[in-house]
Every structure is written in C-alpha cells, then in structure tokens.
C-alpha cells in the first residue's frame, strides 16, 4: 500500500543542521517519510547518521531548520516526548535489557497495572499474554515467559523492539542499522519485519550503510556524506549499482583502486 503524494508526511525535516562546538555534524538536511512508506537513509560511517537519528529520537535538538511531525513543528527535549508523539526509535544496541525477560522488556516504561495506591501492581498475566501475541505476529513463538532477552538471537531481539514499537502505537519507526550485526539469513528476516511494519501503516526510516539491504525494501533513498545530503531519489529513479557506487564514495574508490594498481605495478617492476 503506497501513500499518495498529497498526504502530509508523518515526519519531516527541512534544512536541519546540527553543530557540536565548531564541528558541523549535519548541514541542511531535508527529508520525510509518509505512512506506509520506507525511507532509507544511507551513508558510510561518519556521515552523520547517528547525529541525525538522535535528533529524530529526541536525544538531541537541532540547531537550524524545522522538524515537523504530522505537519506540526516540534522540538523534543527528551526521548520520552518523541515517544509520546509516536516516534519509536530502535537503536543499534536494541534498547533491550539482556538480563530481563521478554515480557518485561516489551512493557518497560509502559507496564500495564491493576489496583490502586500501595497495592498497584503489574498485570503480569496480561503482559505475558499480549507479548506472546505480538511476537507471534512477528513470527516468533515465545514459549517460556521468563526467558531473558539476552538468550534470543540478534534478529529475534530486533523483532522484540519492533513489535514493541508497533504495539505501543508508533506512527514512525526509526531503525538504526538493524542488520549491521546480523548474518545473512537473519538480515533477511529483519527486512521482512520492516516490510510488515510498513504494511501496517507505519512510516519507516531505515538507516544503514549497506545499500544491498536498503534497496529491496526502500520506497525512497537518501544518501548522507559528511553531514550533507548527497542525493534524494524515489525507487525507480536510481538503480542498485548506482546506489552502491554513490555509497562507497564512487570517485574516491576509483582513484584508490588506480593508486593500488600503480603500486602493484611498481612492485612487480622493482
């Protein structure tokens, strides 16, 4: 299900910049994501991806430009505020506590309670039941309710974070390098979750440095390099190889290859 061009983007940044002292982390970034869409933000390490994601998540504030959620300008002072406006961020470290069980992680910060005053307690049965249902929707059957999250595989832990975000009514799901630490098969599984979230009507911002993972799921591609926007294409406007070349620094890599070949020649001659 694709969004129409007239729909207000769920999340949009216009001309956003971020400075740390006199270091320019981001300069003049503009992009957005609509409901039911996946926007891929690509960039190598040091491109400014992590500063960007922290602004979206409410950890930092932007220094220039506008940050809009559903058309309203916002300025988040804490991750909690971002969360309350429906922006769910799944960080690289997954924001799950490894020693705690899956259901405790799932409901962390939003535990369902029953009772009042001093006897207010967590509704454990409900929490465990809901967690199991939601995880089943992601394709995982969690049999042991007290299983610590740390015993799940990387892909499954991603699923927990994503399922949690979706359940708590996230409108925008921001995924920070979800496949970076995973093997090939697990990455495929996570990409499937991304698509599922999209199909349930969320807007997904998928941040990665791997264009091979981004290409199959993205509706829109944005490339960051050293804090600046290199380009912005819809799917169909750019081919996979071109994207890869753009990502890997294109011209710079060509020159490096040249240099290396020349050294090799010199070595052989000498």
């Amino acid at each position, binding site marked *: 299900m694709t969004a129409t061009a007239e729909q207000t983007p769920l999340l949009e940044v216009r001309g956003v910049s971020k400075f740390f002292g006199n270091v320019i982390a981001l300069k003049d970034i503009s992009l957005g994501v609509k409901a039911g869409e996946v926007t891929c933000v690509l960039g190598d390490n040091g491109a400014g991806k992590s500063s960007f994601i922290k602004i979206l998540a409410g950890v930092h504030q932007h220094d220039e430009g506008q940050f809009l959620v559903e058309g309203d300008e916002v300025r988040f002072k804490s991750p909690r505020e971002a969360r309350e406006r429906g922006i769910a961020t799944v960080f690289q470290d997954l924001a799950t*506590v*490894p*020693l705690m069980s899956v259901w405790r992680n799932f409901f962390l910060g939003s*535990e369902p309670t029953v009772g009042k005053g001093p006897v207010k307690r*967590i509704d454990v049965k409900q929490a465990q039941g809901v967690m199991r249902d939601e995880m089943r929707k992601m394709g995982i059957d969690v049999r042991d309710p007290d299983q610590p999250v740390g015993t799940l595989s990387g892909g499954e832990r991603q699923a927990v974070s994503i399922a949690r975000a979706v359940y708590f009514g996230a409108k925008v799901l921001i995924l920070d390098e979800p496949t970076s630490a995973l093997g090939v098969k697990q990455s495929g599984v996570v990409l499937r979750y991304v698509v*599922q979230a999209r199909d349930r009507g969320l807007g997904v911002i998928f941040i990665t440095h791997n264009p091979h993972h981004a290409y199959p799921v993205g509706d829109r591609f944005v490339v960051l390099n050293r804090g600046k926007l290199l380009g912005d294409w819809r799917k169909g406007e750019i081919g996979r190889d071109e994207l890869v070349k753009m990502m890997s620094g294109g011209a710079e890599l060509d020159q490096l290859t040249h240099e290396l070949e020349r050294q090799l020649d010199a070595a052989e001659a000498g």
Partner: protein
Amino acid sequence: MTEAIGGGSSAAAAPAGAPPTPEPVADERLANISLWVRLLRRPEVGSLLGALVICAFFWLNTDSFGTLSGIANWTDVASTLGIMAVAVALLMIGGEFDLSAGVMTGTTGLLLGLLTTEWGFSMWPAIVVTFAFAALVGFINGYMVIKTKLPSFIVTLATFFVFQGLNLGVTKAVTDTVRVAGLGDVPGYDSASKVFSNTFWSPHNFRLSVVWWIVIAAIATWVLARTRAGNWIFAVGGDANAARNVGVPVARVKIALFMTTAMAAALVGIMIALRLASVQAGQGVGEEFTYIIAAVVGGCLLTGGYGSAIGASLGALIVGMAFIGIQFSGWNTDWRFLFLGVILLLAVLVNNLVRHRAEGARR
C-alpha cells in the same frame, strides 16, 4: 491495537509485491522447561542451599543451635544485617553501590543520641529528624552519582570517609568521649524501644528487628517482582541507556534507591542505639562489605540488573548462623573468618554453577 491499513490482522494476508510473512515457527531450541529447572534458575538457589547446609550442620553438631533461644540468637545477628542487605541488594540490582551504608548506621545512631542527650529532643521527634536526615544524605549521594557520572563506588567511598571523620570528631567535640550514652533516660525511650528494639516471647527473647527484617524483605520482594518500580530497577541496573530510551526515569529511580539504603541505615542505627542505650563513634565501619557480600551470596550481580531480596536475606542469615554457630561449637574463634569466607565462597560458586547448568548455553 490499531489494525494496519489494508494490511489485515493476520500475518498471512500480505499485500502483493511484499515478501510473504512467515508462519510462527516453534523454536525447536526452546525445550519444555520443567518446574524444577525454573526453580534452579532463580538467583536464590545458592544462598538457600548454603543456608540449609549450615543450619543442618550446626543443628546436628551443637546442643544450643536448634533450641528456640539459640534461634533467637542467630536471627538477632542476621536481622540488622538482613535489613541492610535487602536495601543494598535493591541498590545493586539498580546498578550502584553504597559504601557509606555501614558508617551511616553509626552516623544516624549518633545523631539520635546527640539530639536526645545533648540538644533536648525527646525520642520520637529525634527519630523523625534522624530519618529525614538519612533521606537527605541518600538524596545527596544519588544526586552526586547522577550529576558527576562518577562510579558510585567512588562517590559513596568519599561519603564514607566524611562520615567516619564526622562521627568521631563531632562526638568527641560535643561529649569529650568517643560515645554517646544515656539514651535510657530520654523521654520516649520506652515507647520507642517497644517499636524498634525490644524482645518478644519471653524466655527465648526474639528481637523485634527480626520482624522488621521479614516485613522489609517481603515488601522488597513484592516491589521487585510485581510493581512498575521493580521493573524499572531491573532495567536501570541492566542497561540504563536502554531504560532511558524507552522513557524510564533513570535518575529518579537511582536517587530513590540511594535514599532507601540511607533510610534503612537509619532504621538499623536507631535499633542499635535503642538496644544498647548508647552509640559508639566507630559503629558500623566495615559492615558495608558484609552487606554487599550477603547480597552477592543471595544472587545479586556486581554489575547490576539481576538479584533477589530474599537471596540477600538468606545471605545475611548465613552470616548470622555462622557467627553464632561457631560460638556454640566452641571452635577456636581464630578460625572464624576463615570459616565464614569458605562458606560464602561456596555459596557464590554453587549459585553460579547451578544457574549456568539450569540455563543451558548462554550468550
């Protein structure tokens, strides 16, 4: 729960063009978990085993250990230790240490003593002031840890030295001696003793502190297992960043935990002051490590995020049983610390071994 637009509720009804969603796969690696294994996974396993073994050992080897008066003796020793061990365990689960916990039992006792014998307070108002003081100290400890971002080990070590010095200096300056005495004559002493430090069940003389200990351990267990605050404590200790990112108020939780240990120290300080009708300036110094050991024996990880209030209580019980048990056995007390050390080491080892076996392969 919002229904996806056009996506349907079932995973199978995927829109055209998207990769097919999988059927839920029962993870064949998750074998059925038996109740026995689930029990063995609990953090209290080592301390329970240790406590049972030691209890049985002294019960069978001495005449007095198993008598009601004997039980009164070792529960007496375990109780003040246990109250502190539970509070310290909560803090450790939350990922922090409080090295000033021991000396605080002295500071609060001395404050109570000075307020009543030197500055004219009667007992109950002095008790209120003492608790308020402890809450303030706990708040300052927590606030400093949060603001400086230094390890709590360091911050509370500094607090420890400050209070160790104050305890001696102020006491000497005010009373010219190294202790505060005469609490027995203060108005309100008798009623306060009835609440905090008297004994019950006459010939055997069980101490009230045992009742306090059991109640506090029960409340702590309930908080950890069944309340939102408990979930937050585990999260803050396990991964403070992750907790913060999902909106858990990390600073508030940690400060509250420091206030808890300080106020528990006040309770224990008051109990001891009332019991002995006097307070020595050196009270409590050195005990902070016993509290931590009891918590670790009870299953608390030094790195935080995991542990048990019941386990810490059992750890304190082990120390209490060993202390009195060795007395009753008439062993050469030179070996007392060796024995205690061996027991505690065994309990921690058993903890680790059994839990690892029960959990199977872990990352």
